[in-house]
């Protein structure tokens, strides 16, 4: 019993080590990871390192191009753009991570239950997913934001509620094949409850594809938030996000192009980093799935 357990542990570790080695060979993915960690760290410590306060105006200065005092220039009210981009990043990243977290939680539990219980329950649960899949969610999110005001919690829920569907499908597919395997039979035979089996044996084994898909969901969620903020339906001032900064930048881009370019560049770099990391993780963790 002990030796079998040790053997299992070793196998598990070597899979992750193997993946890590493969990831290390992918320079773009490492770069993406580095950029992402850098951005997250900056976002976490923003309140302590910003050069100016968020609402500090310098109306005499007005919109000034980048200079030594204001690295990314200032906006029309003389507010420091670097500060605003940093604070915007906090919101954008937070929306990305929390909404993806919501999607992850719903998707994994739903998919695991459907796949594990199987039969009619599975068919019914997946049919529901099919129906939801066919709904034009972008339109519904816009509708929700218009009807129920633009609060952040609703934004998280609405975006999370859209993104869990694919997660549920992926997990269900994995679980269906895991169910057939001996270690699950063994777990059933020693009398573990279904919930324990799902939690202890099934979900840990689906982690690879789930991690990959999560990494790829974060950028699409951030894009969605930016899109809604751009339309004026997402984050509301005085809070700020990259999407909102871009939409302000567009209004004055002829006179003050840096107000558009820097937030835009930052958002693009973040999306780049996440996409490269996600692609790299897919190649590393799930060699079969890496077709493109």
């Amino acid at each position, binding site marked *: 019993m002990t030796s079998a357990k040790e053997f299992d542990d070793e196998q598990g570790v070597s899979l992750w080590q193997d993946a890590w080695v493969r990831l290390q060979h992918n320079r773009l993915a490492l770069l993406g990871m580095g950029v992402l960690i850098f951005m997250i760290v900056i976002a976490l410590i923003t309140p302590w390192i910003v050069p100016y306060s968020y609402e500090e105006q310098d109306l005499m200065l007005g919109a000034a191009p980048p200079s030594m005092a204001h690295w990314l220039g200032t906006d029309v009210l003389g507010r420091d753009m670097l500060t605003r981009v940093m604070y915007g990043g906090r919101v954008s990243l937070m929306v990305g991570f929390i909404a993806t977290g919501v999607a992850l939680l719903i998707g994994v539990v739903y998919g695991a239950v459907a796949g594990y219980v199987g039969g009619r329950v599975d068919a019914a649960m997946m049919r529901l997913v*099919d*129906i939801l899949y*066919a*709904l*034009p969610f*972008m*339109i*519904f999110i*816009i*509708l*929700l934001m*218009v*009807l*129920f005001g633009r609060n952040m919690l609703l934004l998280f829920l609405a975006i999370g509620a859209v993104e869990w569907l694919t997660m549920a499908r992926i997990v269900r597919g994995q679980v269906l094949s895991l169910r057939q395997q001996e270690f699950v039979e063994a777990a059933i035979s020693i009398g573990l409850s279904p919930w324990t089996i799902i939690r202890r044996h099934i979900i840990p084994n689906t982690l690879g594809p789930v991690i990959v898909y999560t990494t790829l969901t974060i*950028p699409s969620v951030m*894009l969605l938030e*930016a*899109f809604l903020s*751009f*339309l*004026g*339906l997402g984050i509301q001032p005085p809070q700020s996000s990259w*999407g909102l900064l*871009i*939409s302000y*930048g*567009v209004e004055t*881009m*002829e006179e003050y*192009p840096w107000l*558009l*370019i820097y937030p*835009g560049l930052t*958002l*693009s770099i973040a*999306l*780049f980093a996440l*996409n*490269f990391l996600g692609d790299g993780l897919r190649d590393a963790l799930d060699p079969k799935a890496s*077709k*493109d």
Partner: protein
Amino acid sequence: MLRFILSRLLQAVPVLLVVITVTFFLIHSVPGGPFSADRAVAPAVMKALNAQYKLDLPVWQQYTSYVGDLLTGDLGPSFKYPGRSVNEMIYAGLPNTVELGFYAMLVAVCIGVVAGVIAALKPNTKQDYIPMSLAMIGICMPSFLLGPLLVLVCGIWMDWLPVSGWGDIPGDKILPALTLGSAYAAYIARLSRGGMLEVMSQDYIRTARAKGLSEWVVVLKHGLRGGLIPVTAFLGPAFAGLLSGSFVVETIFQIPGLGRFYVQAAFNRDYTMIMGTTIFFSTAIIFFNLFSDVLATWLDPKLRQQFQGGK
């Protein structure tokens, strides 16, 4: 095949019903009628307005009457623009949106397939990396950023192209189409590269080469057919994406299309217009998805056989 199409059509009915019902009750669950935000209106006028738009009936009666009208194709009057019906507004906006979507799709497919195929022919060389890096930029550059940047560079700094309008000045359709199409060009490039890579290593390609066919014929005739299956599967979601992309692009470039109408209706709280466009968009998306599924099935002999085999 016919059975497959029919069964998918039948599946679309409950989905549409869900869309209609959810939208209807979402809108009616919001406190305050559409006129309550306006200036103070005399109670009698208010009552007449409510009666005219059937807002004085119980919600379920409003629902049945709405669905009844819907079955005859009537989406009701606009709340915001008296005297105009939602149908009229959709007819007015649709041609522009369709035209924009068509050009954008043209951009996406032409650039995407060419770039993807070129990249797949010599994988892991410069010929692969350069188009694929460009594709990554296309994916990471959202349309609401790319559009203004294109306007700034091509329209304002270089003064090559007009920056807004639709059909007023020659060339004013180029930037919107590029903006909307580029992200899809990027996805299509990645998909067609992946598909082509897989197909080009198959035995039948080796056979075609062994027969002495020229590389052009091998790629264009034997390779593309299999290699583009992932692309056709993507076309349905892509059309859906084009519709929501049109919200932003039509707003940026001031194109009087459905997307812009929808965003305006959302801001104006023009409830019947929101419902009408939501239902219209949903129907379109569901049918695009159906269409691309059918196309993918028809192109892929393996899937085709499955359905002819009576499944």
